[in-house]
């Protein structure tokens, strides 16, 4: 076999490998979409038992721990709407704590991105980082800005987008509680 023929054969192999890589990546993307059907959690479902660590202090958090009502918020640093919601959520966190509602921003993003998203607020103490697999269990559609309201028994009571009627009702309720406590 001549050197030229060897070069041409190797070139054909290299192009075949490039094509194979491209197709393999496309298949993997399709398989990933098929393996994780985007079915969001519904009211009445049990919250999956998911562990995380706080953004501030890296303390361990068990999000499904029964005994306390909680609101899980899904914010993404990649969504401009989420950035707009951060100041209002920061103002809500104190009232939620006083009302006995645990408020957690849940994310699988890197810490530096979360710190950038939450800059200027005290929400780092209300933020739990979890793994990408666990995040898909809680928020399979990747919706943001979104919430899950979880009851004392660990069952989901409401799910939706921040700003919808359920969310506004919570805001009104917490604002009312705060005014009531100040009056008392």
């Amino acid at each position: 076999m001549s050197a030229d023929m060897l070069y041409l054969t190797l070139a054909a192999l290299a192009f075949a490998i490039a094509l194979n890589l491209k197709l393999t990546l496309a298949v993997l993307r399709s398989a990933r979409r098929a393996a994780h059907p985007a079915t969001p959690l519904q009211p009445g479902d049990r919250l999956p038992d998911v562990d995380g660590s706080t953004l501030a202090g890296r303390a361990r958090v068990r999000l499904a721990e029964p005994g306390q009502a909680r609101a899980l918020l899904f914010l993404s640093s990649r969504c401009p709407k989420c950035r707009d919601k951060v100041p209002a959520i920061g103002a809500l966190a104190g009232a939620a704590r006083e009302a006995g509602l645990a408020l957690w921003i849940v994310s699988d993003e890197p810490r530096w991105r979360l710190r950038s998203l939450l800059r200027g607020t005290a929400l780092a103490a209300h933020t739990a980082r979890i793994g990408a697999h666990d995040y898909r269990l809680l928020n399979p559609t990747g919706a943001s800005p979104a919430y899950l309201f979880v009851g004392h028994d660990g069952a989901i009571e409401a799910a939706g987008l921040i700003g919808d009627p359920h969310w506004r009702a919570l805001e009104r309720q917490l604002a009312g509680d705060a005014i009531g406590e100040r009056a008392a």
Partner: protein
Amino acid sequence: MSTDFGAQILRCFIGFVLLAACLGKLRTFDRFRANLATSFGVPPRLGRLLAPAVVGGELLLAALVLGPFPRAGMTAALLLFTAFSALLAWRLWHDGVVRCSCFGEAERSLSGFDLLRNLLIVAATGLFLTLPAAAGMALPAILLAAGLAAILTVLAIDFHDVMHILKGS
């Protein structure tokens, strides 16, 4: 031979990357133009001029790099990639979110891996310029270099996905 062959791979790699960027933006042209406004604050009227200018510029550079003026094309590509990377890094640092559609990506926004990919492309372009001008090569050797560059190009374009697959997420 080995230095010339390496330079040929780098030349084809950068040429293919420029072609892929150009074709990717053309494939999702409306989204690319919208991203200029939403992620970079370019006024819509200017965006209508800038979007085709960027695509045309990349096509011209690809033609220069793969054609008869590789060093001039690579020098211009180095400036272009460096400027793009600096702009993207600044917007990412400043806003935390940038949608680029640099290679026609769907809704995914820019990631740290995309920035790292850009830095590797800048490094490859700079490396080519440090190598002595290549002597003429036989066509079969050029085709082999192009084949190897095609592998690098696929890895570069899908760098974000490849890294996530390697991370196992």
